[in-house]
């Protein structure tokens, strides 16, 4: 199925990119209503500084469109052009201090020096946050973030 093929290619590329760009966070999901994968990259503060990443993302999107046409994934930065649901999967991201409680809450502290109007990542330090019910982590060493 095309959807499975696209997903496989997305995950392969996500793995490659998050290994190469350790700051890169990718949030994505398959939108059943629109019948398309939707992908959001973050943080824009780092993306803006990386011509290399932008060129790679540009070429990847072009390739996906050439191969899959109207079924090709849609891309944006920090959900600027479209919003993802709470069920979206998150991959990658810089490691920040986190303490995992044996209870239902996890503790995450992230230090940000900027505020993005469109960021879905918490820009404030937080000491406790409930784990969202459908929150998924693809990498066991990734940090927990609370959606803004």
């Amino acid at each position, binding site marked *: 199925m095309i959807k499975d093929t696209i997903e496989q290619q997305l995950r392969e590329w996500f793995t490659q990119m998050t290994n190469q760009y350790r700051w890169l966070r990718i949030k994505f999901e398959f939108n059943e209503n629109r019948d398309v994968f939707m992908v959001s990259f973050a943080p824009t503060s780092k993306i803006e500084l990386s011509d290399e990443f932008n060129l790679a993302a*540009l070429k990847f999107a072009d390739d996906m469109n050439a191969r899959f046409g109207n079924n090709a994934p849609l891309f944006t930065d920090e959900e600027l052009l479209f919003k993802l649901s709470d069920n979206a999967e998150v991959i990658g991201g810089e490691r920040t201090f986190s303490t995992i409680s044996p209870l239902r809450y996890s503790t995450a502290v992230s230090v940000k020096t900027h505020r993005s109007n469109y960021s879905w990542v918490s820009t404030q330090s937080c000491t406790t946050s409930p784990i969202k019910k459908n929150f998924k982590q693809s990498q066991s060493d990734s940090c927990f973030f609370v959606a803004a």
Partner: protein
Amino acid sequence: MESAQILIDKKQYTCSVHCSYYAVFQYMKYMLASTNSNPISFTEQNSHNGEDSHEYILNETKNRINQPYKIIRNFSEAVRILKKNRVEADYQQKEFTDLECLDCKKNAEVLISTLKRYFGNI
């Protein structure tokens, strides 16, 4: 864009999405034919009807935007999302709300402004 607004005023929201997208598409074609930077005539543009002509027009437009890759990427992403909306409006059962179609129109206006900024107000 005027047509899009007229349709919105008449609450023909889904139909307006078609006009919003094609305003951008036609503007890209016009820019490509009119630019000083390696122009592509309408005849030559039309010769690519066999492949995805919309993707061809977008790629050729991107190739002539002399800006950082992030700007080119953002432009490309916005066009493709608008194109996706157009496909849904024209061929699928999706009914667009007033907010959704106004969003499409606004995005189309931003894209056209972007084209004017980088190609000049031809």
